[in-house]
């Protein structure tokens, strides 16, 4: 699939956050979104994930068959979308059955991210970094070409960050697309960069 974004603008609470954001991504591409706090990095991902409606511009999807954009993507946001009362395994089984297109089995996905022992542990018992890794394991249980990662390396130790980098590279080699916002330099080979700047608030002229 191919994703192109033209002249996207975002408004929140009647204030223009950013405008004129354009990019095109081919299979195997990665895009790192940078910008200061509050510049609208997360809002950009939320627009792509279908959570926010853009104020202007459009998002085009090509070569994706009959699937709509939300059916083609994984979204890992600030909130980990895990149910604390269920075990890590049960959370992943739900994600796989719910999202369709099953890939790895939940135990294998957890093993790939170095959390094999957490399979039968309720998510409530896991640390912040471990929860983040369970959320990332969701990327592996269902096959989706576009990964939207909002600060994926938050709370991860350096070993886990390296695992994440390898997972992203493997996904790109298989023809997937990754869009990630991050402050920490995640050394991805040949990644495009996009810097979002907040639209300056115009002074009222008297």
């Amino acid at each position: 699939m191919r994703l192109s974004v033209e002249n996207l603008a975002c408004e929140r609470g009647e204030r223009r956050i950013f405008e004129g954001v354009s990019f095109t991504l081919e299979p195997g591409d990665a895009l790192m979104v940078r910008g200061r706090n509050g510049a609208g990095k997360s809002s950009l991902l939320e627009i792509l994930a279908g959570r926010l409606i853009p104020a202007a511009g459009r998002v085009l999807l090509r070569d994706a068959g009959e699937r709509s954009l939300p059916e083609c993507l994984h979204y890992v946001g600030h909130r980990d979308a895990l149910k604390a009362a269920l075990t890590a395994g049960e959370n992943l089984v739900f994600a796989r059955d719910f999202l369709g297109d099953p890939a790895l089995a939940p135990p294998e996905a957890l093993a790939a991210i170095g959390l094999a022992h957490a399979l039968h542990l309720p998510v409530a018992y896991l640390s912040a970094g471990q929860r983040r890794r369970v959320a990332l394991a969701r990327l592996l249980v269902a096959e989706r070409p576009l990964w939207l990662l909002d600060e994926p390396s938050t709370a991860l130790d350096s070993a886990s960050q390296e695992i994440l980098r390898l997972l992203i590279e493997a996904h790109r080699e298989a023809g997937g697309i990754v869009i990630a916002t991050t402050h920490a330099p995640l050394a991805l080979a040949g990644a495009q960069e996009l810097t979002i700047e907040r639209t300056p608030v115009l002074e009222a002229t008297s």
Partner: protein
Amino acid sequence: MTGSFRALLVRDLKLAARVGGSGTMGLVFFLAIVTLMPFALGPDLNLLARIGPAILWIAALLATLIGLDRLFQADQEDGSLDLLRLSPAPLEVVVLAKVLAHWLVTGLPLALAAPLFGLLVALTPEGMLAMVTTLLVGTPALTFIGAIGAALTATLRKGGLILAILVLPFMIPTLIFGVSAANAALGGTIPFSTPFLILIALSLISGVVGTFGAAAALRSAE
């Protein structure tokens, strides 16, 4: 599509069983209201038996409201709602699965417990049967109507009160026809089938309106 529906249904039932969820809370609330009534009204068995169906229906309606505010709010808070939007199934199917799971753990136990609680208000065996039937048919209407309010207030921090104010007026027709069907079964001038068929119609209409309304409310929510 059926895979997503089943996965979500199973997850919500599991969660309800795991946390001890809103099902038991509604049931306890139901029991509390019904138990208090005879103490307030006095030991006049004829009076209790006459207003018993009304007491049970009001208690069931209030018990349904309890826990309804968490229907979508819990998923909104932990980010699960963003995951639910990525489903290959339309949002309406997602809503239907969640509401069905919610009814199975709240509405259904209320209907099944009605004969037991009917003892406290001196209901006759025919009265108990009428209560189970009308609650079984009527509580889906309450849950579906409540789902629209739950979807509208999903992003509000203290949405429970607004939810109750929003949906209570729309639950009144269900209450009227539920109580009149139960009373008709115990004798009276109107045949049982007249209010009972209207009750069924109310449940079917709310099933459609509630599913599409709640999905639309979730879509427009930021």
